């Protein structure tokens, strides 16, 4: 029999329901796994077995929910009441939220068991998980390489079977890019599909929480639980939540799939291009109607993002001033001096860079040239998708132009780091949903991801395509040797 930790949430859910698996035994198996592996992988910012056992006890006392007994890890930018929540930043040292994020409440209402907080790039600023104040998380497929970011800890833990599933957040690819680099499933839902209440804000017009799982069915199960309108988030949208598992039909006959020519360009790794083209052939064989589409403003997405996201971040991060919560520098002459010292000692280099860039783009004399210009190009990017989706139901692309790179390789060149999100950023700009699913391996044995995008609130189309692809391939079943 397979080890409990290696199973998916839907497999475990069935076994727990018929009494074949005791959730306490499952939790033990997960914490044993964390104990033996996390010294190497370093996916966790916090893992607390005693508290996880208490949470399981509380889950057992209620009506047994849809995720009863399933261990879940959450990214360290999602607030959990009374648990250290740091965004992997020194500036939030000691902060313990006074409330649960809506997604935490929803998961616990359905019996899921929170096992800890996942490492991440500081404030989700990064594509490699290297900017964390806890040090980098490692890719379970090659410990010398980065897991991707910013949800690197959540993703590495799922890939290493250190949790059954996880939550991440995605502002420009922070769920999908690491999912691609670690060979797991990662979904960024439509902007407004999942409440952001209790997600520490990075860029409020782009951020979205989503599931990171071992397979497509698990992503649908978790989205069923966390999606929905929340009066605590004015940008959550009151659209009914369908049962996403109904889209898992293993049938894509007649599904119209668009392939954007602008995504197959210089800089795309050959192995990745080949794997994605083979994936497109799988869809053709299964009866989908594949055609070329055009997203002409793709090449401007990274530039647009690196104005809008830092601009919003510089405003959101103004709240970290050493007054209300977190770290405060010692020995200040006056209030301004306290702000300067606290923020300079509390933020890492990349956070400082984003704050500087954002403040610059918003400052008097530059606002029109940078920020307003970027908002207008954002309109063009969104219109590209509106137009493309007139002719197709889904768009498929590579998730990342390269496989996992070596730790340290891009740290001195922020621009090269930023370009790793070239294929994932457009979905955030347009607010549409997108998933990454495993679709192959490079010659070096590193995972490759396929990105599938759909119209706003049409996660169903994504699940339909992703599930059919997964059921007709076996990439999601391979595990790293650890």
């Amino acid at each position, binding site marked *: 029999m397979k080890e409990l930790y290696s199973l998916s949430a839907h497999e475990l859910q069935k076994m727990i329901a018929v009494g074949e698996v005791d959730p306490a035994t499952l939790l033990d198996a997960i914490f044993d796994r964390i104990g033996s592996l996390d010294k190497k992988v370093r996916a966790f910012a916090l893992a607390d077995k005693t508290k996880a056992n208490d949470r399981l006890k509380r889950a057992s006392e209620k009506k047994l929910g849809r995720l009863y007994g399933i261990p879940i890890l959450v990214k360290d930018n999602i607030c959990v009441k009374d648990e250290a929540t740091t965004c992997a930043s020194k500036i939030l040292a000691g*902060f313990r939220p006074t409330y649960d994020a809506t997604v935490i409440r929803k998961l616990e209402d359905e019996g899921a068991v929170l096992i800890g907080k996942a490492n991440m790039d500081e404030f989700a600023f990064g594509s490699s998980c290297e900017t964390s104040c806890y040090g980098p998380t490692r890719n379970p497929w090659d410990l010398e390489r980065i897991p991707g970011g910013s949800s690197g800890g959540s993703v590495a833990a799922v890939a290493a079977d250190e949790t059954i599933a996880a939550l991440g957040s995605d502002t420009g690819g922070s769920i999908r890019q690491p999912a691609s680099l670690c060979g797991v499933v990662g979904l960024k839902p439509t902007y407004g599909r999942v409440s952001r209440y209790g997600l520490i804000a990075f860029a409020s*017009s782009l951020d979205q929480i989503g599931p990171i799982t071992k397979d497509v069915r698990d992503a649908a199960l978790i989205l069923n639980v966390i999606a929905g309108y929340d009066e605590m988030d004015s940008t959550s949208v009151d659209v009914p939540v369908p049962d996403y598992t109904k889209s898992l039909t293993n049938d894509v006959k007649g599904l119209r799939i668009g392939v954007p020519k602008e995504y197959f360009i210089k800089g795309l790794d050959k192995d990745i291009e080949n794997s994605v083209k083979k994936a497109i052939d799988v869809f053709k064989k299964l009866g989908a109607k594949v055609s070329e589409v055009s997203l002409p403003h793709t*090449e401007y997405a990274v*530039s647009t993002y*690196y104005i809008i996201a830092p601009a919003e971040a510089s405003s959101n991060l103004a709240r970290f001033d050493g007054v209300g919560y977190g770290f405060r520098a010692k020995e200040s002459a006056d209030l301004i001096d306290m702000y*300067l010292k606290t923020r300079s000692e509390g933020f890492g280099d990349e956070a400082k860079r984003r704050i*500087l*860039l954002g403040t610059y783009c918003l400052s008097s004399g530059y606002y029109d040239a940078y920020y307003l210009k970027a908002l207008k190009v954002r309109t063009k990017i969104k219109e590209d998708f509106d137009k493309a989706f007139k002719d197709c139901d889904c768009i498929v692309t590579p998730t990342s132009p390269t496989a996992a790179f070596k730790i340290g390789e891009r740290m001195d060149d922020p*621009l090269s780091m930023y370009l790793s999100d070239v294929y994932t950023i457009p979905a955030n700009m347009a607010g549409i949903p997108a998933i990454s699913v495993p679709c192959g391996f490079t010659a070096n044995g590193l995972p490759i991801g396929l990105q599938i995008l759909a119209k*706003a609130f049409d996660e169903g189309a994504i699940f339909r395509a992703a599930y059919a692809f997964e059921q007709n391939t076996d990439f999601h079943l391979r595990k790293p040797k650890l």
Partner: protein
Amino acid sequence: MESIDSKTVRHVALLSRLSLSDKELEAQSRQLTSILSYISKLNEINTDAVSPTSHPLTSLKNVFRKDDLKPSLSTDDALKNAPAREGDFFRVPQVIEGK
């Protein structure tokens, strides 16, 4: 759009309430210059007739809740995470001059 010199970076840093060491200033100026030069690509697009998109939910208007009385965070909870507290207040270094 132009490159960014260290004097400008120092000014923006002050606006952002960050103080940078000379080494940081040099590195940030260099890296920001390369990022801004990449970003200037946006000038290739004519956006004269384009309206800006500040968030994806184009149909969203102002959102108001009902003005009902509900429990809110207690004073103790609100102050629980403060690095320094005095009574029911956040304690901060002196703001105005004099005793």
